[in-house]
């Protein structure tokens, strides 16, 4: 049977994407992925062949993140304030700053909301897989996803409303205070 460690390389891209969504910073994210890869490599025996390797690796990424994060909690507390400030700035030009606005709003969500949204919304995880990855009940993941989405919508509306939604949708939601 082939060595599952040889498959690790295939998952580094998605691991980086997941790590960025947790860390909110690409450099820290790559350090996190590196740590996670080392752990995965040396604990490959705990990987059940034939099971979902990505889910296994994401679990390692998030555990590594949380053990790191708890240590550094005090240092990063200001991050939210900084990002809140960024969001309240008007975009320089109209319209399609979509991705940037969205990313700025996304960074303001809690760790739990970000990871739930990314796993389910972007990573293609089922609610069950996401629950297992995060070590919580399925209902907890569902409510985190739901609250995360609601929070994003509020943030995007309180920004300029641009970006998250196509214009017609935003108009329907009455979230265009800038038309005045």
């Amino acid at each position: 049977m082939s060595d599952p460690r040889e498959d690790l390389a295939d998952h580094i891209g998605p691991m980086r994407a997941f790590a960025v969504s947790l860390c909110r910073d690409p450099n820290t994210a790559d350090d996190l992925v590196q740590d996670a890869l080392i752990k995965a490599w040396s604990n490959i025996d705990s990987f059940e062949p034939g099971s979902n390797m990505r889910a296994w690796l994401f679990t390692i990424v998030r555990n590594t993140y949380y053990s790191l994060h708890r240590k550094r909690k005090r240092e990063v507390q200001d991050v939210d304030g900084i990002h809140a400030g960024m969001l309240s700035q008007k975009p320089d030009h109209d319209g399609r700053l979509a991705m940037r606005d969205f990313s700025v709003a996304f960074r303001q969500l809690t760790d739990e909301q970000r990871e739930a949204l990314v796993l389910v919304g972007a990573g293609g995880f089922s609610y069950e897989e996401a629950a297992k990855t995060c070590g919580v009940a399925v209902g907890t993941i569902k409510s985190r996803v739901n609250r995360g989405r609601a929070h994003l919508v509020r943030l995007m509306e309180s920004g300029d409303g641009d970006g998250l939604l196509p214009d017609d949708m935003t108009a329907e939601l009455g979230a265009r205070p800038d038309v005045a």
Partner: protein
Amino acid sequence: MTHKSNKQYTQPTRDSRVDRAIDENLKRAFQETADEPLPQRFADLLDQLRQGNDSREDSALE
């Protein structure tokens, strides 16, 4: 849904299209990073690990 509503449109449930728009943004952001060429450090790391860094102590790779 053509009513010209303004600020006071408060409805607790989100349009499912809003959820879809959110997921599309999430996917786009995720995929952009996932598809980036990998920094060289990861190829180097795997090489190092393959070359019998197997003596497991928390390999001082940092």
